[in-house]
């Protein structure tokens, strides 16, 4: 069994404001996660805004130092005891995809320059090999090098640029890709292209994904495991299909009840509750 992601008693406290009035916010509160698998997996991390999802992602990406606890990602120690890898070595195993691709790429540089730089600096490739790696990564996301070459971010649509940023993350062939809300900026009708792409890349590149989202429906669709976060804690973790069809924790149930579904109407549920026919409680 390979350990894809392991956190032990992970805590992170932010201090907001300046000294006399500074307040403490515990963004992560004893997070214990352990995902071991032979095959690559997609893990979803869901929860409301402010639940600590992004902080956990940042800790995993080494962008934020945890206050205490240990993190191991794909065999690399990120925090806690052990030998920490160099940044280059680390980026060869873990790569990020961010929410807004227009903010992820500078608008003053061409997109292919970013891709090539990743191949040369992180992948440690020579120029020719780098071009080839970029071509491969782009074709994996359904784009062509000649269409990307010399283009600036504003010449792409949101969906295309997000695919380019996925291609960039693929170049060093990482074992884990951390995707923080990768589809929330993309039009609903085009979202499934990215979602299905994750599934295809999991097979083709043997890459695991940590998919951070607040959209439970897409989480149900692609993930193998799901972790539900609330107030810095992981309140429920398990097989995605099981957790979402038979939630054990009341917060998961609350999240599920709040999704605007296409089969039952809240109004009907509430009316039924008022007539004493259902146990539903309007929140």
């Amino acid at each position, binding site marked *: 069994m390979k350990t894809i992601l392991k956190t032990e008693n992970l805590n992170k406290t932010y201090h907001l404001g300046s000294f006399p009035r500074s307040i403490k916010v515990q963004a992560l509160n004893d997070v214990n996660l352990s995902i071991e698998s032979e095959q690559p997996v997609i893990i979803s991390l869901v929860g*409301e*805004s402010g639940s600590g999802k992004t902080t956990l992602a940042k800790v995993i990406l080494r962008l934020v130092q945890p206050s205490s606890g240990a993190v191991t990602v794909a065999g690399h120690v990120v925090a806690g005891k052990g030998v920490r890898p160099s940044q280059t070595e680390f980026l060869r195993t873990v790569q990020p995809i961010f929410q807004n691709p227009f903010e992820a790429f500078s608008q003053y540089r061409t997109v292919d320059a970013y891709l090539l730089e990743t191949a040369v600096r992180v992948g440690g490739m020579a120029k020719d090999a780098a071009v080839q790696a970029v071509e491969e990564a782009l074709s994996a996301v*359904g784009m062509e090098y000649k269409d990307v070459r010399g283009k600036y971010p504003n010449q792409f*649509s949101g*969906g295309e640029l997000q695919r380019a940023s996925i291609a960039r993350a693929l170049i060093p062939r990482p074992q884990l890709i951390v995707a923080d809300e990768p589809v929330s900026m993309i*039009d*609903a*009708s*085009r*979202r*499934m*292209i990215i*979602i*299905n*792409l994750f*599934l*295809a890349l999991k*097979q*083709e590149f043997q890459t695991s994904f940590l998919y951070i989202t*607040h959209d*439970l*429906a*897409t989480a*149900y*669709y692609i993930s193998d495991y799901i972790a539900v976060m609330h107030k810095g804690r992981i309140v429920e973790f398990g097989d995605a299909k099981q957790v*979402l*069809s038979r939630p054990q924790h009341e917060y998961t149930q*609350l*999240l*599920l*009840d*709040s*999704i*605007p*579904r*296409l089969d039952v*109407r*809240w*109004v009907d549920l*509430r009316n039924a509750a008022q007539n004493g026919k259902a146990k539903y409680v*309007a*929140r």
Partner: protein
Amino acid sequence: MIRLENIVATYTTHRGQVHAVEGVNLEIPDSTIVGIAGESGCGKSTLMKVLYGDIGFPLSLSSGKVDYGFVNDRGEPVTTENIRDEWFRRISYIPQSSMSSLNPVMRIRDQFVDFPATAGRKKEVLAQVRSFVQKLGLPPQAIDAYPHQLSGGMRQRIMVAMATFFQPEVILADEPTTALDVVVQKSILLLLLDLQKEMGNTILLVSHDMGVHYQITRKMLIMYAAKVVEYADTDDLFQQPLHPYTLMLIHSLPTIGDDRARHGLPGSPPSLWEMPQGCRFAPRCPLATARCRREEPPLKEHVRGRFSACHYANSVPELKKTLEAGPKLSEINVMELMAEAERDI
């Protein structure tokens, strides 16, 4: 009843003029919640601007007018010409981003009474505001705060309070819950629903989330590339759409408990600069024929009260059956799914 007559809204850009809304004819009945859906750039927000009367460079109304079906204080019928005078009193607007709509350096209470209609009786109005926000599920002290001191959900409640305080006849809500998480979204939508029931006003709700529309709207308007493609009762529209675009929009996203493979809509909407001849949806439509590429289908009443702009509206039920019998995600190769989405158009 709000009557829209042949609305054409045009943006003037450095490349010339472009129509963002083209030839919309509609009748919106009183005291209903009407949902407007479509992809980005289909003209739904522009239509809201036209309805709100917020027309100014670069947007202009090239032709048509809106008849709101009520009269102003002087007894004149309200149309596009004089709707601006009715802002907040008979028509109001709930924007997507409360943070960029509220003034960050003013307390909420000052923003509430910051217009001439309350002159001379600000104290009295503030007392009413306090009891009103309490009814909306906020502590009365919330209006003494600055916007940044409130959470996103509270701010959006304040926006709803501002929009409904004078009990306007028409409320326009442009993606009112997009920036919120699902738990808060539900509470805001139910609040809107309750207020509408109580006040009996007309709400026009723009959202890209078909689930939101199903939950709270009574009628729905689907827009595609600056045109209305379907207009019907929400129940009918979800049960049996009469336009392939509506059907594919509903089926584009996964739902919990459903394991069928989804591939979204193939291709992307046409550029407003280069509209295809004939039906604008034809390049992405599985039902399209040579006729669709030649002549543009008008929006017509296929069944009573159900408008659709499709030559083959009668074949849409067939298509629905095919989609519903689609393979499960576990049964197919994901690479094929990708190829389907990339289908050359």
